[in-house]
Structure formats: structure tokens, C-alpha cells
């Protein structure tokens, strides 16, 4: 129906009320200052909070910023972090999944029983466990999307039911040690100790970002659309490079590039791509932003919901395997305790809304780093449990207050 353009009244391309950014670096800085003032800062407050936490713990313990400690932190966050990525998907729908700890537990149990007790190949066993988790997610999704049981109740039933199944599968065994140097044992404990690995990954990441940004900007300019100036792309790439190569250097000071970090980062990057750049991701956001509007747009809401619950369960299964790898075994209590709460908290601290339609999978990474940094910092200091709980609570609150205050400025300046 493009012929309807024929009678269009000429409208100036740019609305005169839009405060257009000056070209070049100066404009970039001016815009940053404006954003700072109006509180529109994205992830900056959380990152600042993270830096603050690191600096304070370094000052207190003198050990926080050692290569070994930072490397350990990447190992600790992989398992719960993967679960948290799944939770971001569920939160984007404006729903909750309470079962993910149990799903992680039952998956680790299935994989361990198959490979250790029944001699199934470890890769196959892990694959079967993930498939079981996908089926579990589909079941949750079915009851939620088709029968209409609130997700909270479905996944609460799942929380109970699957941890029961986990106990049942483990049977009288109780604990199954990972096969030494096997696939599961290595997941969270393998390091690419060639220095080239870490630097290579950093280089690929930075180059990938640069190429994508330049190509994107070019195709926008060709289409006559406003595009990011090259100076800004350069600045962002430089920042990314400092971060990436800094991390690579630090990891190489210790044991090298952890496999766990590669997997976790890979999952975050891929899911971020899926959510922001594919029509599936668009559907997830649409359902989270307004179920009825999404339905009227012809989106198969039930299928989107079911698929999201499958994704979250699948990622929880992988997270469970990482947790088993970290502890050295699978047992009846894997995935219980704080695992679920921490994963949800990470997503929320990282900036994903509990009310749907707003968030990104990077928040799982950022939030997990905040939580784990607090825990590890306090562990380094070796304080008693009660005091540790109190401090963790306070620091958690503090880390988010920063973000909230900036958002509040933004809100009072917006429609909200």
C-alpha cells in the first residue's frame, strides 16, 4: 500500500523540539551530561555500585582485587548466572518461575545417575537432562498458558514436585561424585591456560562489536536515518577494549580463561541477540508489555509463553550442571537454598523489571557480579554468619539505591 504516500504533506524531517545532539565527541559528552542530569543512565549506576563494592573490599581485605579471587568469582557466578538469564526471559513476560532451583537440581541428578550409575556417555547424559528440563518447562508453560493457572502456582508446584523427583532419582545414593576430569567435572573447572585464549576472545569481542557498529551505522546513513557518529563508536569500542583486555590480562595472571566464563558470556550474548534482534525476542517484549495488545497483533501468546518457560528451564538445567561441577557432585539438595532467590535478585538488581517488558540478559551478569562480590568479599574477611547476613542485606540495598535514585529523577521527568 505504498501508493498512499502520494498526497503526503511535506513535513520537516526533524522535529524542532527534539534537542538534537551536536555532531562528534562534543555532542556525545553533552548528551551524556544531559542524561546524567535527568537520571537516564542505564547500567551506569549498577556498574558504579560494583566498582564501589570492589574498592571497599579491596581496602578492607587487601585481597579482593587479586587475579585469583576475580577468577574464582567468574567460576561461582556461572551456574546461578545461567539460571538468572532464564529468569530474565520469564521476568520479561511479567511472570515468575519458582521452580528453576529444583529444575537445576533434578537435571543435575538425572545427568549424574545416568552417567555414573548407568554408564551412559557423559555428554549424552547431560543432553538427556537438558531435554528433560525442556519438557518440564513445556509442562509448566502448558499449565500456565493453556489452562490459565497462574505461573506462580504452577512453578511453586514444580518447585515441590521436581525437588521430590530429584530426591527420588538420587534414591539411596544421596551423593554422586563427578567422574574425575570428565565433562561435568571440567565444566566449571577447566581453564584455557594458553594466554592467547583470553586475549583472543577479547579481540574477537571488541572487533565484533566494532564491525557490527560500523556496518549498522553505515546502513542507517545510507537509508537516510540518523546514525551513531564514528567518534562515538570509537569511544565505545575503546571502552570495551580496555575492559575486555583488562579482564583477559587479569585472568591470564591466574589460571587463564575459564571455560565457565566463556559459556556464561556466550549465553548472555546470544540471548541478548535473540531478544533484541529477532522477531521472537520482539514477541517476548510485546507479550510482557501488554498481553492483550500482543494478542490482537496476531501473536500466538500461548506459544511465546510456553517457549519462554522452556528456555528458562533449559538454562536452569545447564546452570545445574555447572553447580554440580563447582561442588564436585550432584546430591539431593543441589539447587535448593538461596540459588533461586539469588538468581531472581541478580536479574532485578541488574535492572530487569519484575513487571514485564523491560530488561536485558546482561542484567543477569551484572546482578550476579554484585551479589557474588558481596558474598566473596565478606567471606574473605571471615565474619560470622549473622553479621554477614546483615551486611549483605545492607550492601544489596545500597547497590540498588543508587540506581533507584537516578531512575526516580528520570521518572519525575517522564510520563511514568
Amino acid at each position, binding site marked *: 500500500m505504498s501508493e498512499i504516500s502520494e498526497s503526503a504533506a511535506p513535513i520537516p524531517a526533524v522535529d524542532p523540539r527534539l534537542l538534537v545532539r551536536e555532531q562528534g565527541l562534543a555532542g556525545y559528552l553533552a548528551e551524556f551530561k544531559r542524561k546524567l542530569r535527568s537520571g537516564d543512565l542505564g547500567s551506569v549506576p549498577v556498574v558504579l555500585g560494583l566498582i564501589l563494592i570492589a574498592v571497599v573490599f579491596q581496602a578492607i*581485605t587487601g*585481597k579482593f582485587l*587479586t587475579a*585469583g*579471587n576475580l577468577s*574464582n568469582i567468574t*567460576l*561461582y557466578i556461572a*551456574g546461578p548466572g545461567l539460571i538468572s538469564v532464564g529468569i530474565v526471559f520469564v521476568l520479561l513476560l511479567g511472570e515468575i518461575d519458582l521452580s528453576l532451583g529444583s529444575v537445576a537440581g533434578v537435571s543435575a541428578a538425572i545427568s549424574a545417575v545416568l552417567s*555414573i550409575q548407568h554408564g551412559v556417555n557423559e555428554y549424552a547424559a547431560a543432553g538427556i537432562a537438558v531435554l528433560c528440563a525442556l519438557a518440564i518447562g513445556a509442562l509448566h508453560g502448558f499449565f500456565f498458558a493453556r489452562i490459565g493457572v497462574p505461573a506462580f502456582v504452577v512453578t511453586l508446584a514444580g518447585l515441590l514436585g521436581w525437588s521430590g523427583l530429584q*530426591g527420588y532419582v538420587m534414591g*539411596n*545414593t*544421596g*551423593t*554422586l*561424585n*563427578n*567422574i*574425575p576430569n570428565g565433562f561435568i567435572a571440567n565444566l*566449571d*573447572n577447566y581453564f584455557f591456560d594458553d594466554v592467547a585464549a583470553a586475549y583472543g576472545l577479547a579481540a574477537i569481542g571488541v572487533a565484533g562489536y566494532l564491525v557490527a557498529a560500523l556496518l549498522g551505522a553505515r546502513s542507517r546513513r545510507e537509508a537516510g536515518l540518523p546514525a551513531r557518529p564514528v567518534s562515538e563508536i570509537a569511544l565505545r569500542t575503546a571502552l570495551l577494549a580496555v575492559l575486555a583486555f583488562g579482564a583477559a590480562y587479569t585472568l591470564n595472571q591466574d*589460571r587463564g580463561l575459564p571455560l565457565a566464563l566463556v559459556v556464561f558470556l556466550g549465553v548472555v550474548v546470544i540471548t541478548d541477540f535473540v531478544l533484541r534482534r529477532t522477531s521472537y525476542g520482539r514477541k517476548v517484549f510485546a507479550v510482557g508489555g501488554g498481553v492483550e495488545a500482543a494478542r490482537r497483533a496476531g501473536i500466538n501468546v500461548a506459544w511465546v509463553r510456553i517457549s519462554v518457560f522452556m528456555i528458562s528451564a533449559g538454562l536452569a538445567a545447564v546452570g545445574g550442571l555447572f*553447580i554440580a561441577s*563447582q*561442588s*564436585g*557432585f550432584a*546430591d*539431593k*539438595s*543441589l539447587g*535448593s*537454598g538461596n*540459588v533461586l532467590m539469588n538468581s531472581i535478585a541478580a536479574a532485578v538488581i541488574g535492572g530487569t523489571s519484575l513487571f514485564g517488558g523491560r530488561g536485558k540478559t546482561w542484567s543477569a551478569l551484572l546482578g550476579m557480579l554484585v551479589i557474588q562480590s558481596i*558474598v*566473596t568479599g565478606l*567471606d*574473605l574477611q*571471615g565474619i*560470622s*554468619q*549473622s553479621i554477614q547476613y546483615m551486611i549483605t542485606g545492607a550492601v544489596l540495598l545500597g547497590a540498588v539505591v543508587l540506581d533507584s535514585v537516578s531512575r526516580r529523577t528520570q521518572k519525575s521527568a517522564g510520563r511514568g
Partner: protein
Amino acid sequence: GGSSSNSASSGGNKTIGLLLPENSSSIRYESFDKPLIEAKVKALCSECSVQYNNANNDAATQKQQFDTMVSQGIKVILLDAVNAPGTTSWITDAQKKGVKVIAYDRLASGPVSAYVSFDNEKVGELQGQALVDALGANAKSANVVMINGSETDPNAAQFKAGAHKVLDTGVGKIVYEQSGEWQPTVASQKIGAAITALGKNGFQAVYSANDGMAAAIITALKANGINNIPVGGQDAAPDAIQRILAGDQAYTIYKAYKPEAEGAATIAVDLLNGVSVGGTATASTDSAGLNIPSLLLTPVVVTKANIKDTVIADGMYKASDICTAQYADACKDAKIQ
């Protein structure tokens, strides 16, 4: 209804209640205690039955289960309390209704009719001593890391106290001490923090309050390139036995569940029949001024040297449970088949 006021010995209700605290951090409860007690009760009294509930580590849940049993008219209850010091009012109230309570494994406070257990402080002492032994000549100069049980578990405090009794004088220094909350992942991170704080050569042994945490600790140590320093636990879990065989773990504490469970079952049936428990509960324990007839068993340290004579000989595990393909060679070395 619970209106029956007949004395227990008149045999109205032939059910024995069994209340266990949890089933996730230790397999003993549903793999050993429950089946062993059920079998022994059946053997002693064919028309008797056992009603079993598990509290999932929640004291309030356990109280509900206790009350539900009392109001059903059950007259003898074996209680392994989630929170042993908190049961005074439970047992006092039950006693008024003619219900007899046996404190199983943990000494429930209040007027219990009997007590069957291992000595938890003794467990801690044995753990400490085993660690000192594992360090051998270096013990006096060794730095030791302690990863204790949960601060909300009263048993954990006793293990800790017992271990300290030995370690405070037996080793050089406790350089890092934290609660692992009975959670493997937590224990793993605590040991990671200890390595960061003290350096890879900063300690020469790790005390872990149980086997589950010990497994995670050993994994973390290996991941940091620390091999072959003594780490010990408790519970004689099959995987711990395997680690001991492989040389990864130094020792565990074996609490022989069979005599404990069977002794408790015997006492329960005796109480149900109005028979004196003196035959089984030969010892006596002081509990807030009361002398409780007791059966107190001694825990045993298990190392590579005595696996064959303890857990295997007692039939707790079959050799085939332990000697899977990976551990076949180690089994041969330890003369287990």
C-alpha cells in the same frame, strides 16, 4: 479421637511414631534409620506398625507432625528433633496424655523416657584427632581451616566444640573459620576465600564438619591446584569412602546406624508393651536434672586402613557399591573386593 486415656501397656494402639528431621543433607534418615527401625519393630512385634514423618528441617513442621501423632492416639514416639533444646513443652504435654517419647540421635529436652545416640561432642573430638593424626609430625606447626556446620543446627555447635577441644592444642593455628551452612556450594566458596586470603600455601589441612561439604572443598582445592592436604568429614557417605580410597579425603566419622536404629526400635517396643527398658538402655544421661536411661554408641573414625573392617564388615555398604570401575584399583590396594 485422642480421648483414650488407657495406659500404654494395655495395648490399644500398636503404632509407633517415628519423626526424623530432614532428608537432603544426609541420606541416613531414609536410607538407614527408617528402614532399619521399621524392620526391627516388625521383627519384635508383628502386629505393630511405624508411622513415619520427616520435618524437612523445619521445627514448626515437626511440632505439627508430633501433635498430629499425639492426637491420633499414638503412645510411643521416636523423636529425632530438628531443634533438640526446644522440645521441653512438647514432651511435657505429651507425657500428660500418657505418650512416651524416646530421644533419637539428638537429646530432645524435656522428660523423655529414653535416649539413643552417638555423642556429638565426641564426634567433633574424633574429627579433630583424626585430622591431627593425618597431619602426622607436621601437626604442631600446621595451619588449619575449619568449615563448620550451620549456625542454626545445635548439633553443629557440638561438633565444633568437640573439634576445637582437640585442634586448639593439637595443631599450630586455626587460620580461617567459617560456617559452610551444611551447603556444598557455600563451603566451596568459603574455601575459595580462604585460599585468596591465605595464599595457596597458607594452610595445611581443612576440617569439614561433614562429607557433603568435604566433597565440595576437595573439588575447590583441586581447582586451585592444591592437592593432597588432609580434609576430613563425617557420615561415612559412600562417596566419601570412595574419596578416602582414592586418597582425596583423609577420614570420615562412621556412626553405625544399625545398632542405633535397632536399639531404638527395641526400646520403643518395650515401652509400648510396658516392659522395662533397662536391658537395652544401660547407660544414663543427665538432662536438666533428670536421669535418662540411655543407649550411647561410640562413633568410629574411618580411614583407608579400616574401611574393610567398619562399613563393609558391618554390611552398611557392599563392596560392589564402593568398588565401581574407577575405584577398582584402589579397592584392591585396600584389600576390598
